[in-house]
């Protein structure tokens, strides 16, 4: 017994002597990587210390106590100790101190490792905007990107995923609020607005999307995240208000849109997304609505447009409005170049965000009923009054099927006093929306008329049908695209037809009409459709989603704070330099950590 005590005592003495010795000459050992430590995340006020095997527990305790630290835990690996520093002492200082302790083999910060909050949504790997790994997505070129060129959002999800305290209004073609990945994230409008918003196209309370565009935008903002379904939005939980101002063809007016904005503001939206635009004249009433939104502290995020043009030269509205609560967004591709279609503007466009090959929720299943007018070369449409016939023409080296009147068009001319009708009946029952698309070359002088009609009970659409358009006109020798909303014709027998009416004056040579690429494109609303499309329309909701996240994270944030964090927290990107006011692509984590400079500094001297 005595021997044991003696030997422990001697060991302690030896240890102390060694320590004393070490003070004079510190044993060298592996240096931690200071550079890595400077940029890595680590827990402030803590270090991990690996003592040498010879340093018994007493020695370790003494080493730590000598620096004024406390031991938090002995880790499973022998010799590793989890140490808490004294108040006010930095990790760097502590690491230096332990380096000089001869009992210490190695010391390092207590690094933080993230699971990087990757949500469980099965389509997540396609969302290059949130995580660009260089994956191939979609077909719009270039469809393969550069790893790292994304919105840097995953780290932000460690801090916030539920943004449902902030209502975001999607002012668009409506939203399919039954879509499986959106239903849980729709705004609760109570009994007044049971369908989560309002429809200003049909002036009713059903903002169901008959196009797909609005549903896609809504999904980018707030498709339910981490729910093992589909995709995720910028936030995993959201409150999306559906405001329908664009019809089934994606078109809307000042009247619809300003009513939509006023509705969103009145019912508490704090962010409004408008992925729409017009190259045209300054619209005072639209501008006034944005001012109203600003006065109610609402952030408005809009798209720059898709005409590859400079908005500083040709104004594009609402992008070019100048209110301080407005943010205009350009589109970037998977390599963070400006998307080939994207507008820009050194003073009119603010930031960029991913806008090509974006996967998101869709309104339903799309179909096409294409018609080539003939059966084995013979017109199979019903005619009356003659004139119309089937023929083929070569356009840019490709042979197409045509509906022609006269049959020699674009040579010759049709007869005088004609009432030439041609129509066909289609079964459109079961569809929710239908768009008539065709291309046409036309040369009809004043006095004559080409009419387009439909009839939703079948038969001759020019006997009791509805006219979609009609009159004289010319496409100047070119073939032009035409689209019409055929939704009112949805029935088992929807007849669509063309009628050429001529007066007694002979039409000049070259008069007539030729129609090609005729199709009726249909939409059937369902709960499980997704789609990958491109546009500044897709970049815009990413920024609206960021605005939503910032306002949810910082409940006191004003529109000015939010816009400041979006613009200043972005990442400088070469493609946006000189093309936007900030030269930046949005960066979610950086914006979340951004702090607006204080204001209102005053001094009182006594």
């Amino acid at each position, binding site marked *: 017994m005595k021997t044991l005590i003696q030997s422990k005592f001697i060991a302690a003495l030896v240890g102390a002597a060694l320590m004393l010795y070490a003070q004079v000459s510190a044993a060298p050992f592996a240096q931690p990587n200071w550079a890595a430590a400077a940029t890595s995340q680590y827990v402030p006020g803590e270090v991990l210390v690996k003592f040498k095997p010879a340093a018994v527990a007493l020695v370790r305790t003494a080493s730590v106590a000598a620096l004024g630290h406390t031991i938090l835990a002995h880790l499973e690996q022998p010799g590793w100790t989890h140490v808490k520093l004294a108040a006010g002492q930095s990790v760097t200082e502590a690491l230096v101190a332990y380096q000089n302790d001869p009992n210490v083999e190695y010391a390092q910060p207590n690094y933080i490792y993230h699971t990087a909050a990757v949500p469980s949504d099965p389509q997540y790997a396609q969302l290059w905007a949130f995580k660009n790994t260089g994956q191939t997505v979609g077909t719009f070129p270039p469809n393969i990107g550069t790893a790292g060129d994304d919105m840097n959002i995953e780290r932000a999800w460690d801090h916030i995923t539920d943004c449902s305290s902030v209502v975001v209004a999607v002012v668009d073609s409506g939203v399919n609020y039954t879509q499986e990945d959106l239903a849980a994230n729709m705004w609760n409008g109570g009994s007044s607005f049971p369908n989560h918003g309002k429809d200003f196209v049909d002036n009713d309370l059903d903002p169901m999307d008959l196009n797909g565009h609005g549903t896609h935008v809504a999904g980018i903002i707030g498709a339910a995240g981490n729910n093992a379904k589909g995709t995720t939005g910028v936030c995993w939980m959201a409150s999306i208000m559906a405001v329908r101002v664009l019809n089934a063809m994606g078109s*809307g007016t000042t009247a619809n849109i300003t009513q939509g904005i006023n509705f969103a503001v009145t019912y508490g939206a704090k962010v409004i997304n408008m992925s729409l635009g017009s190259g*045209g004249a300054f619209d005072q009433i639209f501008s006034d609505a944005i001012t109203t939104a600003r006065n109610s502290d609402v952030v408005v995020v809009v798209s720059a447009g898709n005409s590859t043009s400079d908005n500083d030269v040709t104004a594009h509205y609402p992008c070019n409005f100048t209110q301080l609560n407005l943010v205009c967004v350009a589109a970037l591709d998977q390599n963070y170049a400006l998307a080939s279609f994207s507008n820009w503007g050194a003073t009119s466009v603010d930031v960029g965000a991913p806008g090509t090959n974006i996967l998101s929720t869709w309104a339903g299943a799309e179909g096409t009923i294409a018609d080539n007018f003939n059966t084995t070369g013979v017109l199979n449409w019903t005619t009356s009054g003659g004139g119309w016939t089937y023929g083929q023409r070569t356009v840019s080296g490709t042979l197409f099927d045509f509906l022609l009147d006269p049959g020699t068009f674009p040579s010759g001319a049709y007869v005088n006093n004609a009432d030439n009708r041609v129509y066909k009946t289609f079964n459109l029952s079961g569809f929710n929306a239908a768009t008539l698309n065709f291309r046409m070359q036309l040369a009809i002088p*004043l006095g004559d008329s080409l009419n387009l009609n439909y009839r939703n009970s079948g038969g001759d659409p020019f006997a009791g049908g509805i006219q979609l358009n009609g009159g004289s006109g010319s496409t100047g020798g070119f073939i032009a695209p035409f689209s*019409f909303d055929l939704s009112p014709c949805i029935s088992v027998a929807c007849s669509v037809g063309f009628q050429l009416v001529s007066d007694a004056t002979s039409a000049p040579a070259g008069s007539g009409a030729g129609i090609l690429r005729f199709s009726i494109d249909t939409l059937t609303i369902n709960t499980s459709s997704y789609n990958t499309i491109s546009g500044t329309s897709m970049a815009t909701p990413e920024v609206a989603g960021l605005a939503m996240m910032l306002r949810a994270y910082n409940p006191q944030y004003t529109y000015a704070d939010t816009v400041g964090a979006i613009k200043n927290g972005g990442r400088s990107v070469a493609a946006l330099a000189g093309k936007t006011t900030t030269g930046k692509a949005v960066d979610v984590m950086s914006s979340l950590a951004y702090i607006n400079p204080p204001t209102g500094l005053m001094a009182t001297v006594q």
Partner: protein
Amino acid sequence: MRCWRRGQRIGLVMAAAGLVAGSACSQTPSDPAPKPMDLSSRQTRVPGEYLVTLVAGADVKAIADLYGRYGIKGTQDLGRNLFLVRLTEDPGPAKLEELRGQNAQIKAVQPNFVYRGNGRGNIQ
């Protein structure tokens, strides 16, 4: 007289309004070489539709007084003294603005502009 224009894409809206011909739609036999397709000829405003703002407290009758000569198909109250007016004949925004000066009850008049979604990439 109605007319077709190249590249028009509006469905229901066009059907509701009666198009006004304008000289842009006529085509003479001796027309010169074809012009390139002009996308700006796409509708930027709804023909025949105007947004009229009245002075606060003004009577909506002022709209018919001033613009009734063109045939008023309908007037929709959008609130806040703003009305959507549909005319049978469309004399154009410049003419309506010129007339506005004759009636102090009407604060402003402008077209009902058309906007489109910016999705699907660079679509025509």
